[in-house]
């Protein structure tokens, strides 16, 4: 019995988790050895074949962490030997020197959260139709589809956060981490009837600490997988060396206040989908930037552009309009001023981590310099 194509492909996917250097050196041989082992075990029965898979999966986390550490240490060794200009090794964000830009794959991963947001409406509709929902909403399927979409989002965020933790929090992961934490914070204040697929699962007044259970499970899974605090130390070091990482995490929450401004309007889906995409462009530019000021400018630019478009549209929409819940027609000048004020507050929050950069700069200046 030959190793099944699915098994072969699944193992090839697992191999992709190893560092690039390791893969290029051993992936073919590992695939070959695994297939031989699986073929032989499959001949002895299902349990033996399952044993081969279980062994691989059992050792995988430890092997991944070990190889990545070894790879990082080798990178540091090579960097310390290299004196060529523009060589930055892995230590991204360490000081004002320019770095190599992130790869396009990493950049797309960094902007992925914003690019995926517009698709959520489509996913929701797909679930709604799959559940047999039709006709005017709301209906039972309407609530169930919402629950399932929420479960999908939470599961996706947990998976990404675990991956990011195990891989020492790469730059692209910060929006997901930021969005996850803000999402938990918002959910902690939500009053839920805890209805799951139409079944009442007990009355819950407020989610409170329960909203942070996903974050806690990420920590437990990741600590068990890595059995090390090194990723957290790496996170602290990376944030200390490059404050824009915190801004990037905060940037991920911007779609929420932005889209909430369109509540009670008849904005079409295309317009609403455009805002996350505009923010996504800022994220993409951030990922491709190589200097701190470029990164800060990318995020500030993304916020400014999307907020300006929102202000212009809302001002035009409400011009002379009086909704039933309004006591008087909208004063567009006051509205524009209020939008600008809110935008300025968001901008200040986005760039507040620069204070950390200032502290870093001050410490660097005060530190006594040793002659070589």
């Amino acid at each position, binding site marked *: 019995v030959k190793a099944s194509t699915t098994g072969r492909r699944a193992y090839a996917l697992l191999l992709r988790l190893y560092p690039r250097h390791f893969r290029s050196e051993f992936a073919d*041989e590992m695939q070959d050895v695994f297939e031989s082992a699986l073929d032989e075990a499959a001949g002895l029965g299902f349990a033996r074949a399952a044993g081969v898979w279980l*062994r*691989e999966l059992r050792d995988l986390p430890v*092997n991944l962490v070990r190889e990545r550490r070894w790879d990082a240490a080798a990178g540091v060794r090579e960097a310390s030997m290299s004196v060529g200009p523009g060589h930055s090794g892995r230590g991204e964000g360490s000081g004002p020197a320019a770095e190599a830009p992130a790869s396009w794959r990493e950049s797309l991963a960094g902007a992925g959260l914003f690019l995926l947001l517009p698709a959520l409406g489509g996913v929701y509709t797909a679930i709604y139709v799959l559940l047999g929902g039709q006709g005017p909403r709301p209906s039972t399927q309407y609530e169930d589809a919402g629950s399932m979409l929420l479960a999908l989002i939470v599961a996706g965020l947990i998976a990404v956060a675990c991956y990011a933790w195990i891989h020492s929090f790469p730059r692209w992961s910060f929006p997901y981490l930021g969005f996850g934490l803000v999402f938990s914070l918002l959910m902690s204040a939500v009053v839920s009837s805890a209805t799951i697929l139409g079944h009442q699962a007990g009355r819950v007044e407020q989610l409170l600490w329960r909203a942070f259970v996903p974050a806690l499970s990420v920590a437990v899974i990741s600590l068990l997988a890595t059995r090390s605090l090194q990723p957290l130390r790496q996170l602290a070091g990376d944030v200390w060396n490059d404050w824009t990482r915190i801004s990037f995490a905060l940037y991920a929450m911007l779609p929420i206040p932005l889209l909430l401004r369109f509540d009670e309007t008849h904005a079409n889906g295309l317009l609403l989908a455009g805002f996350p995409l505009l923010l996504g462009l800022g994220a993409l530019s951030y990922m491709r930037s190589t200097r701190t000021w470029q990164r800060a400018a990318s995020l500030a630019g993304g916020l400014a552009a999307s907020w300006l478009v929102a202000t212009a549209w809302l001002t035009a929409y409400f011009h002379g309009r009086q909704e039933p819940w309004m006591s008087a027609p909208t004063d567009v000048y006051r509205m524009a001023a209020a939008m600008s004020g809110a935008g300025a507050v968001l901008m200040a929050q986005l760039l507040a981590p620069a204070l950390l950069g200032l502290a870093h700069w001050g410490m660097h200046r005060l530190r006594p310099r040793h002659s070589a």
Partner: protein
Amino acid sequence: MRSSGLRPDPPLSEATFYIMLSMSPGPKHGYAILKEVRLLSDGRLVLSTGTLYGAIKRLLEQGWIDRTEDPRRDHTVRRRQAYALTHSGRRVLDAETRRLQTMVRAAGLQPLGEGSM
């Protein structure tokens, strides 16, 4: 980047020791090493491919093993990479084997029954 250290410091891990021991009679490819380690350890140590190649990578970097062509390769299958102990690797294995023998001898001289304190 190879170190030329001949003495394992700290002592070899069980997996590394068995992997090197499996190459002692001659060069072997990955799958043969996997099976030999299982055999040598009486089925107690069954390596995953990830663990095997992690160890192989470090042994290569330490210069204790080297790549070579599989001497028993069959022309009907694709060429397999084999690994062989280097001179320094053999000396490390010998040193480790002597260390283990000394320990076993010492344990044999000591009464191990209950309440032997």
